[in-house]
Structure formats: structure tokens, C-alpha cells
């Protein structure tokens, strides 16, 4: 089943810093909820393992994440495909755009994903809510990692 989500968030840092952070596996790893492993396997490719819970379905997804349409420091497309065993699969991507804004950088994202298997059967109604929650959590972490206080510490 299809899952879509759009949004934007204001980040407290300049565009170049945001861009660098978006390409730093360590930053991403510390910000993506549930991520257990995020390893750079090529210039634009990562191997990832993440624990995800959608309603009654809890699974560990393993997959590959790739970056494409690289347009530094304006944006990229991040896409991935993961297998969650009997929980099903998820694949999809997000177009990320950066632009200067008052007080920092505005990041706009547009997610389009497909999920299937048990995660769709049991979590169908919950999936958009869960995705929104994960996104909010990610950007909260990401914003925090970019904030001056965090850097000073």
C-alpha cells in the first residue's frame, strides 16, 4: 500500500551545514529513530538496519539506502528498500529540498513509499500516523544536532 507524506521544517543552521549533516552517516544514525546500523558502503550508498513498530507489528528491517539527484547544497533524493522478514517490506524515497530562510534553512520533504505484507495488513490504518511520528522525531533530533547548544557541548 502506498504511503505519502509531505512537510517542511526550519533548521537552525546555514544551508551548507545542513547539507553536510544530511550526508553524514553518524549524524543520520544518531537522528533516525530505531536505527541500529548505518554503514557507508559507497559514495552514495549505505547499508541500514532499523527497528520499526507499526501497531502490533514489530520488525527489524534490513536494507540498502541510496542517495541520488545530488544537488549540493540544495537537496537530494534519499531512497531505500528494506525487508522485514514475515513483517513484510518497505520501499520508497523522499525528495529533500533545502532553501535559505530567516533563522536558518528550510527543509522540505516529500515522501512516497510502498509497504506490504503484515505491516500493511495489520498496520494499514496506523502507518501514516507512525510515519509522521518517525519524521517528527527525526527532525527534532536533526534540529537538535544542528543547534548551537549541541555544537558547543
Amino acid at each position, binding site marked *: *500500500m*502506498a504511503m505519502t507524506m509531505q512537510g517542511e521544517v526550519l533548521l537552525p543552521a546555514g544551508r551548507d551545514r545542513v547539507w553536510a549533516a544530511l550526508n553524514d552517516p553518524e549524524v543520520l544514525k544518531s537522528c533516525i529513530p530505531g536505527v541500529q546500523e548505518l554503514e557507508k558502503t559507497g559514495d552514495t550508498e549505505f547499508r541500514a538496519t532499523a527497528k520499526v513498530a507499526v501497531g502490533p507489528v514489530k520488525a527489524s528491517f534490513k536494507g540498502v539506502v541510496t542517495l541520488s539527484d545530488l544537488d549540493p547544497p540544495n537537496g537530494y533524493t534519499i531512497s531505500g528498500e528494506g*525487508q522485514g*522478514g*514475515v513483517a*513484510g*517490506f518497505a520501499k520508497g524515497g523522499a525528495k529533500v529540498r533545502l532553501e535559505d530562510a530567516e533563522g536558518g534553512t528550510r527543509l522540505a520533504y516529500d515522501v512516497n513509499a*510502498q*509497504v*506490504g*505484507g*503484515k505491516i*500493511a*495488513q*495489520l498496520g*494499514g*490504518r496506523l502507518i501514516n500516523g507512525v510515519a509522521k511520528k518517525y519524521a517528527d522525531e527525526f527532525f527534532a533530533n536533526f534540529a537538535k544536532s544542528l543547534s548551537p547548544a549541541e555544537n558547543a557541548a
Partner: protein
Amino acid sequence: MTATGIGAPVRRKEDQRFVTGQGRYVDDFNRPGQAHACFLRSPHAHANIRSINATAAKAMPGVVGIFTGEDLAADKIGGLICGWMIHSKDGTPMKAGPHPALAQGKVRYVGDHVAVVIAETLAQAKDAAEAIEVDYEVLPAVVEGPEAQKTSVQIHDVAPDNTVFRWHLGDKAAVDQAFAKAARVTTIDLVNNRLVPNPMEPRAALGEYDPGTDNYTLYTTSQNPHVARLVLSAFIGVAPEHKLRVIAPDVGGGFGSKIFIYAEETVCVWAAKKVKRPVKWTSDRTEAFLADAHGRDHVTHAEMATDEDGRILGLRVQTVANLGAYLSTFASSVPTYLYAPLLSGQYDIPAIYCEVDGVYTNTAPVDAYRGAGRPEATFVLERIVEKAAREAGMDPAKFRKRNYIKKFPHQTPVIMTYDAGDYHASMNKALEAADYKNFGKRRRESARRGKLRGIGFSSYIEACGIAPSQAVGSLGAGVGLWESAEVRVNPTGSVEVLTGSHSHGQGHETTFAQLVSDRLGVPIENVSIVHGDTDKVQFGMGTYGSRSGAVGMSAIAKAIDKVIAKGKKVAAHVLEASEGDIEFKDGKFTVAGTDKSLDFASTALQAYIAHKFSGQELEPGLKEGAFYDPTNFTFPAGVHICEVEVDPDTGVTKIERWTAVDDFGIIINPMIVEGQVHGGIAQGVGQALLEGTVYDKSGQLVTASYMDYTMPRANDLPSFQVGMTVTPCPSNPLGIKGCGEAGAIAAPAAVINAITDALGHEDVVMPATPQNVWRAAQRSRMPMAAE
């Protein structure tokens, strides 16, 4: 009528064990050394399997064995079969793709069987299934019947346009002529929503192999264990028929879904020999949603021609039937011969022509579900009849009465010969019971409260007592549909009936015992009914199509007649009279015109001790068997009237009244029959208001649990008014027509006719959920309070 004989409302004998938790279902059986199976299922609706890597999974704790389609193929295990051949209009046989029990190279629906893991515990089997790596090449999917005929998605190579058959029935030219002279033509487009069967007990299988005797045993949730054995041996080739014992113990509901021979049962009995351990699988609820054969899923366009007086001249129907990703056991018969021959309903329609395309999609297989084809036919006919009456400005009851068949036997233009009925009697009784004449008053009262009240009719017919073997053979059935029974009288006079029918909730242990008690004068507690074990029962075609009464009990009646005939011979020797002078009445063999008699139990004892006759004169013992093949279908019919009140602000439909008047012929147990009517209506209301199976465009089943699939509950239903009329069925010795499916057949059309009456337009989809009805109500004119 005695207190326990035919017609008595005897309380169900089996309920004591069911309500006290003493029932024994497949999952209650545990065999020494038993291992547990978990099926790895496809998360994709359509994909090629590039590879399956089970190396890591095989090394996991407790794993006993992991098998895939390749292992089945290596053992020459055949695919699952569809047992009814349908020919297309052009004479070509249906195009059935392969149906392996475990996928071979390709998966075709979400839930398709990819591999089986057998482990010491179920948890270990599930963990290992998680560790199997399957490399899929995901393909585009199609989930709707009409779309499947137009897409480039190809599900089975053998079926271009994903079309299994393009079938038709009836006289096209005669229908064209009828339409040419019509005063009015009514058209309708309908979707008969896909349903998940949802028996209370999910399917289960426990396979066992004994290397000492080379015997296999399969405990399974089956409505027809002998048919399962026949298919597993003769077609799938798991074990020779005489080496395979199939046991279907207590079975907690089926509604058709347990007729079929599925992958899981096949794999469990096969794998038991592979791993040298009994192998058990019990479906969880989500697996049942994914992989039990679904019901309905028709898209239909229909046209009805009428004259100036509202007489029906002709009917034209085009249906696309979604058969799912594979052909299930009887899938091809349901939208064809169990559907189109019912399109004449209770009406004298001179010309009918029906075209049905059976179509593959990337969804679970679709097969018989309570009513099987007949609810679909009734929905089409009763919706279009109601609409035709409205368009003609005629009262829908009057319109129906004008068109009812009045003389029997009646030959319809679509195969069936109705043998008996009185449709006016049912309608008149129903109108009275529903207080139809005061409906207008009730409607105005609702309008004053801002509510929309509507009334809907469903004047259904069904063809039950399935079926005369020659007739179904000529229509493509791969089996005969007779039934068998054996009546064993013990030396003490107690009776065991071994029947090929299978009770999975119908109450056979009670009704069948009533027949025996009635005929032989034996107390009902001295009768036991044995079913569901191929080692005990000689043969059986099982329970579906409301056939256990009309066909199964007729076989028992035939065997009882033979027992009485033999008893007369025994009594004649004991009473020293000629056989011709012996009468059997009230449980006693009497020499006519004398007070010399021998009661039934004494006769049984004499038959077994054999002291009063020599072996040359008479064989000892008192046990008789019979096979009964019906001479016709039976034709239960009735009228259901549903009265609803719709709240246009919330879209909630409340069923205010339900009146059912059914003609089931002779009734063995009115309490059980009424229960069947109640259950059937509840299921039909479920389809009409609540139940909808949804696959999204990518083929994901998004209604795979009770969070998203709504079953009817007590507060969705009113208290039913159930009445009967009786015209005995002339084609079987008991006069029985059958009652198991009637409610589910009648109800959906009655509900939707009532809602469309309330809304004042025809445009509401099934299920008529509050959301759908609310949308439809926005298009309705609010009636004025004073109207």
C-alpha cells in the same frame, strides 16, 4: 409427532459438549512427537522468485525441516485442483493455470505459500521463517476483475487477458426479441462485495505418517473428509486412497470455506513423512483472512425488459467474476452453474441470457461461500426487480406477485425445473407479518424525526439438495453429488448412523437422530451419529449447498427402509408368521390383525443371535447401507422484508424490522431451522452493511484483521420475525428442501432495497457502511415532515 420425532423442536444434543468446552477440534489433537509448521507467505501480490536461501534458517534452533515448491515437485506431488470444468462460449475448456501447494517460481497473491518451516515449537518455526531470504522480482499487480481483462499484467501464461472462461447460458436471440418489444427497460450496475468467510474456528491440519503400516492420517477442518481424501490421493498424489485416513472431528463453522483442499493440509500430510514426525498447522486469524478462499466479488450489469403491465419479458446479465490468483476446488462452478440458473428467481421470465467471464487477479482465490452463486444471483435479480417496480410506479410487492410462477412443475429458460412452491402464500404471510399496510405511517413518523425510513423486499429462490449426479456431470462436475449412509443396529437395539454428511455447526447429531427415532421408534438418546472419519464412514460427499437434509438424510431414510425390511424377515421367523403379514409401526413388528408383536430391540437381538432362522434362510445381523442420488435439485424459496431507518446526518442504518417467511418443505427440527435462518440473515446483513474485503491497488490486503473488517454483532440486528409456509419437496422421500443458506441469499438485496427506498435513489454501494450511506444521503432529497 412424537417429542423427539420429525417436526419436534428437540434441543441440540451436541450443544452440551460445545458450550461446556468439551468439543474436540483439530487443534485439540496432539500426537506424540508432533512438530509445528509455519508457512512463509508472500508479502507481494505478484512477483517472480529469483531465489530462496534457507541456509541460515535451517541452522536455527529447533528446525526440523524447511521445504519449498521444488521439494514438492521432486516428490512428484501434484498441484491443487479445480474440480468443475467450464467451457467458454466458443467451446474451449477453461484456462486454468498451475496451482502448486508451495510456489514454484512465482507468487500470485499476498499470502501465497512460499515455503514451510517445520520446527519443534511454533515459535521456533516462526523465527526460522523470518530468517529465510527470498529474492523477489516484484511485478505489477491487478486486483479487480474488469481491470484484469484490460491490463498488461499477466498472472498465468495459459490465460490471456487473465480470463479463465467466457461462459454463457440462455437464449440470446430470444432475449433480444423480448427487449425489442419491451415497454420499459430497467438497467442496473452492481458490485457484489468480496467477503472473507470467518468461521469461528480457523483452519487447521495435523498430518501423521506411520512407517510400520505405511498409513497416513490427516486431521483436518473439512466439511467433506472423503472428498479431501479423494483429491489428496487421486489428484495431488500425496498418498494412496486406501492408505490415507482423513478425520474431520468437531469443526467450528465453515460456510463453504472448509470444502476446499488447500495447500496447508496437503503440505502437512506430505511433510509428516518427510520429517518422520506428525506435523501440525493451525491458521492464525490473519492467515485466515489472507488464504481462506474468499466469497462473491462480482461486477454485474443487468437489464430487464417489461411490458406496460409490469410483466417481465426478458433479462440480460453480464458478470465479471473475480476468481482470485488460482482456481480453488469448486471456483469455476460458483459464478456459472450455481449462479445463472437461479436468475429466473420466483418469476415467470420467458427469456434469460447471462454471460459470465471468470477472471484471475492477484488476490486470494474465490470460491463457494454460504449460498455460493445464489446470493449473487438473488442480489442481481431482486435489485433489478425492485428498481423495475419503482420505475413502473408499481408497488414492489404487487410487481412481484404479478410475475410469480403459479404452476408447477415450471421449466425456467435457464436449466432448472422448479418442482413445488407457493410464492404468493409466502408473500402474503410476509406482508401481514411485516405490517406492510402501515409502513407509510411509520415512514412519516420517521420523517418527523428527520430520519429516512425505507422498506425492501427479497423474494429469493435457491437450488439446494445439491445434486443429481448425472445432471451435474453433464454440466462439468468432476464428482457425483449423491450421499451415502449406513445404519447399524446393535444387538441391544441402539443405533449408530454413519453418514457422509459432515456437521460443522448444523446440528446433525440431533436432526439425524430425530429421523431415526421417528422411523424406528428408538429413543433419541439411543441413537448416535458418526461422521467425519474416512475409516469409519463408507463414503460421503459432505456438507454444503444445503444438502445434508435433502440428500444426506434421504440416504439415511433409504438405509432405514432396508433395516425395516430386514427386521420384518427376522420378526417373521421369530413370530412364526409369513413376512408379508408383518407390519412395522410405533417401534414394533406386529403380525397384522393379531396382538403378536416383537419390539425393535428384541428384533435386533434376534437378528444377532440368529437362533430362530438358519444361515441359509437369512443372513444374521441388522446393518444396512444406502447411496442416495437425488432426482432433482430442491427449491427452497421465501420472502424477506427489511425495514430500515437511515440517519442522513450520520449515515447510520438501523434495521428496524426483519420479516422472513420461508418455504423449506418438511422441517425436521423447527428450532434448528430457525437458528439457521437467523445465522444466514446475520451473515447477509454483514455483507450488506459491514463486511468489505479491500485490496489496495498494489494487491495488499488492507482488511486483514477485525480492526479493519467488520463482522455483524448482535446490536446490528433486530429481533427477527421468522415464519414458514410448507410445500413438501416431491423429489426426495422426506420432502425436505434445505435451509442453511437461505438467510444469506435473501438478506443483502432486502437491505439494499430498503436503503435505496429510504434514500430515494439507487446509488448506494455494498457494504452500505455509514460512510457510504452518508455520501449517498447527501444526494437524497430530504423528505418534508408533512409528506
